[in-house]
């Protein structure tokens, strides 16, 4: 479903590559954790997949689409097929919890009726039903992350990419977020999780790709966090 072929990325102001000759493939319905220390290249891989950055060399495929060759308008359509969750939540500060999710649906051209029926449902799913009209600054870290997961899954994406989603959370909220991601995966959605949290990776018991200094050093089915 997703294929990285010999990807190297050197940022314009950097001397060394952030990721170097990285190749891997992710199949539909998989739960893949990409692990490594800070600066290992995890976030770069997410940005490349979303088309936020272009690789210096190599190709990225989403099914048959070559992501790095897409024009901006096509990229927009691709991004609707990928739900994203970030460490810093990236919520729209001037919109309520309800509106944050509704915005993702509006962007995808959904009707008002569909929005009105789906948004409360997904808010209940992440246990935020009572906080629908709270603004992000009125929510705790865990609530913000649950909201950002709700936004990521609202358009039924084929893939959910979670970039260090537990980085800013306490253990209880971390557990909850991981639990929700596993549930999403069990319903058939491919999940890509980047993290440097050993406890999280070990608890998931799924495929682990380990990065070190921008290179893939391990790729284990039902792996653990080993560096």
């Amino acid at each position, binding site marked *: 479903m997703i294929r990285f072929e010999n990807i190297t990325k050197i940022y314009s102001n950097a001397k060394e590559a952030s990721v170097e000759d990285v190749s891997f493939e992710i199949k539909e319905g998989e739960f893949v954790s990409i692990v490594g220390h800070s600066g290992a290249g995890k976030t770069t891989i997410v940005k490349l997949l979303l088309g936020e950055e272009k690789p210096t060399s190599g190709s990225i495929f989403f099914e048959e689409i070559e992501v790095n060759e897409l024009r901006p308008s096509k990229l927009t359509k691709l991004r609707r097929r990928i739900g994203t969750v970030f460490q810093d939540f*990236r919520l729209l500060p001037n919109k309520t919890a309800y509106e944050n999710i509704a915005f993702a649906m509006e962007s995808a051209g959904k009707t008002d009726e569909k929005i009105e029926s789906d948004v409360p449902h997904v808010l209940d799913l992440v246990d935020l039903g009572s906080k629908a009209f709270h603004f992000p600054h009125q929510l705790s870290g865990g609530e913000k992350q649950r909201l950002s997961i709700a936004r990521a899954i609202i358009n039924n994406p084929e893939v959910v990419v979670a970039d260090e989603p537990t980085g800013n959370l306490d253990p209880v909220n971390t557990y909850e977020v991981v639990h929700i991601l596993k549930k999403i995966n069990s319903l058939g959605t491919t999940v890509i999780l980047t993290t440097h949290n050993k406890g999280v990776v070990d608890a998931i018991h799924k495929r682990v790709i380990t990065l070190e200094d921008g290179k893939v050093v391990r790729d284990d089915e039902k792996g653990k966090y080993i560096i």
Partner: protein
Amino acid sequence: MKVLDIKRIVKGGFLNFVRNGFVSLSSVLVMTITLSVVTLIIFSQAVLSFSLSQLKEKVDVTVFFNVGASETEILGLKSQLEELPEVANVEYISSEQALENFRKRHETDYLTLQALEELDSNPLGATLNIEAIEASEYEQIANFLDSGDILESNQKLIIDKVNYSQNKLVIDRLISITEGAKRLGLGITIVLVLMSVIITFNTLRLNIYIAREEIGVMRVVGAENHYIRGPFLVEGMIYGLVSAFITMLMFYPISLWLGANMTDFFGINLNTYYFANFFQLFVITAVFGTLLGIVSSFLATRAYLKK
């Protein structure tokens, strides 16, 4: 773009305007200053052009005729003058009328009136007051009066003097002041408007710079560029409309004060002018503000939507 998109964009713009509180307030304030500059310029242009037209009306060429010149000949010259394309109006004042005017002017001056009584006949000749359409055309009219056409007939003989050459200096001076003021006014207008436009543009750019991460989030969520940019344009438009409204409101007491205290100085009542031109003033400020808001927001968002 679908109707649904437009509806959502407009709603988004309004919500942003309301929720951005302080940012919206500062943008509206800056834009109000810009629109006030524009309105002040319109006011000063009104004063300037009114004063100029008043001054121009006061300038004319007067032809003084010899005492005893026949009325038929004078009227003949009048109709000749009226045919000239440069001439706006010719007023004939007969010698009797001139005497009457003189008496009125010196009503309280018994000495002069007494001296006048001493004379047997009317010492004043008839006159023709000629007004040109443009101040610069007096010279041509004066030349016509000196020209051969008139010399050939005996009309030249009845003319005592033409005061154009005496007034020429003042008229020339007036023309150069008129044109200078127009040029200076245009220069100042361009500089002031440009300065305030740049300040407004930068304020809106700063607002959008603050929202750059939000724009990034919208892109990641999969929103198309027009859908991200739209609410910012609507917000810019609201800044323009609200600022135009505040500007018009602000200029009511200003024009009231100017009308009450400065009418003699300006020669025009600016409060009357404000009410007479209220609709045009509002349309000009609203269109200017709206365009400024939309164009600034469009250019400012472009930087974050390029990638």
